[in-house]
């Protein structure tokens, strides 16, 4: 093994990479906690991160530098993971196969896949937020898809719409207020049903999520003594790697637990974290 690959596979590399990542996270947390970057983070959540990053209108160049730095550090960690898995763990299994080491390899490989799934969620598909619609209105998006709101079934007191937070279950039952929507593509109906808060409509990898009920934002609807039907706020998203991600993540957790059970009574050869002993 060459000196460079040895270094790329080393735990020293992992440690320093993680230390820099932690410091990078502290910087991110400071920005997230500051009012100056509130709009910037909201912008990141409003669209797919890929679109946010590539758009010139989203602003917040420092936030973009931070995000790119985070991606670079994760890529560097991924390189370490590949070399470490290949050069150390895999080699050890070939020479001295045992259960805990196999599980360590599996957990590390799955961790790499989870990280890729995370990246895929940020970069693939699409996301449209804050789509405000009333009964009968439609919203068109990519590839000829369209959503139509057939009806808004709001049974709670309309006064609750004035509140932005501190809403009790007596004031609002999220299992009873809903909207009936239809998803079509080029005029052909693909799926229809009721969407509730915390209960979206799914069609293949497209998800239509009911985020909120709001008062009508149109000035004409605000007549004295007349309560117009609430509008709904939707998010339309498509994440082609979501299902894979949701399957591999618990596998990683299960791998950790199995490794823990296998090594619970076995004292480390040296040091505390047997995983880290070189």
């Amino acid at each position, binding site marked *: 093994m060459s000196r460079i690959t040895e270094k790329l596979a*080393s*735990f*020293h590399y*992992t*440690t320093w990479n*993680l*230390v820099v990542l*932690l410091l990078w*996270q*502290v910087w*991110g*947390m400071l920005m*997230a*906690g500051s009012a100056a970057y509130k709009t910037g*983070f909201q912008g990141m*959540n409003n669209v797919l*991160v890929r679109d946010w990053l590539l758009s010139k209108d989203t602003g917040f160049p420092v936030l973009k530098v931070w995000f790119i730095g985070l991606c670079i550090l994760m890529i560097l960690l991924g390189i370490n993971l590949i070399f470490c898995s290949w050069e150390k763990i895999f080699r050890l299994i070939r020479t001295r196969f045992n259960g805990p080491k196999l599980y360590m390899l599996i957990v590390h490989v799955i961790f790499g896949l989870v990280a890729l799934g*995370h990246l895929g*969620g940020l970069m693939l598909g699409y*996301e449209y937020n804050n789509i405000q619609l009333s009964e009968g209105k439609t919203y068109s998006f990519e590839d000829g898809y369209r959503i139509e709101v057939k009806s808004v079934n709001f049974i709670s007191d309309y006064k609750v719409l004035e509140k932005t937070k*501190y*809403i*009790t*279950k007596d*004031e*609002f039952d*999220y299992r009873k207020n809903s909207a009936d929507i239809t998803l079509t593509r080029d005029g052909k109906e693909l799926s229809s049903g009721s969407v509730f*808060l*915390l*209960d*979206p409509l799914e069609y293949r990898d497209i*998800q*239509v*999520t009911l*985020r909120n009920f709001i008062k009508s934002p149109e000035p004409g609807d605000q007549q004295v003594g007349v309560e117009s039907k609430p509008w709904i706020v939707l*998010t*339309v*998203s498509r*994440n082609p790697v*979501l299902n894979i991600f*949701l399957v591999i*993540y*618990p596998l*990683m*957790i299960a791998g*950790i637990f199995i490794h*823990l059970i296998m090594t*619970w009574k*076995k*004292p*480390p050869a*040296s*040091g*505390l*974290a*047997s*995983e*880290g*002993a*070189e």
Partner: protein
Amino acid sequence: MLIKLYYIIIFLNLLCFSFRIAGRKNLGYASGIVALIANGALLISIAIQSGHLPLFNFFESFLFMTFVLGLLGLCIRGPKDYADKIRVWVWFEILVLLIMTLFFPKEPAFSMYNYGYILIILFHIFRYVSLPLMLYASAFYIQFIIQREKNERTRLLSQQGRNFLLLSAGLFLTSEYIGIIWCQIGWGDFWMWGLNFLQSIFIVLFLMLAFHLPGKGKFYEDIKSIIGGLAGFAVLTLYIVRGLLG
């Protein structure tokens, strides 16, 4: 009534800690049990009064965590020679948690409409079980650091510290996974950029660091146990910061 019971819990845990320091094992054990029962009674009272499980604000979640930590402290699993010493650290940590609650409103959380939703409940339960486990692991690590001798017996302390830290990491990741599903069906995306999510990454990275430190020998063993022992306190600090920011 809730407040009175809350101060009684602080007093009982202080008493337990004092008995442990003084080496009065039986009295320490008895006061620990009474403190745990009182803590459980307070949690049940909060649940009855508020109509939700006591997991949702700083006061509720920290009382829940002191309960879990007290339970762990009473059923120490580790080297028998060191069990009483570890219990001293566990009750020190319980007191730290309780002291933190003194700086926050001592009342149940406002009962939001979605607090009965199963994913929200599970997310909080796993999260607030993982932190006491990290602190429990810290107790083993601290005891290992202050032991002058480093032999196979004392290394069992670090091994148990590592075991509980890894267990807490698994539970924390479980809470993250539940949070991901909750976020996906609630907001249409499993990831939301913001302080809470960045804090979660920080915790995962810190745990990864604790498990990947290289090196052999006494110096590196101490470094590893310091980082492992700090994990719980680092997470605790993040929770306090989040509590302060509302």
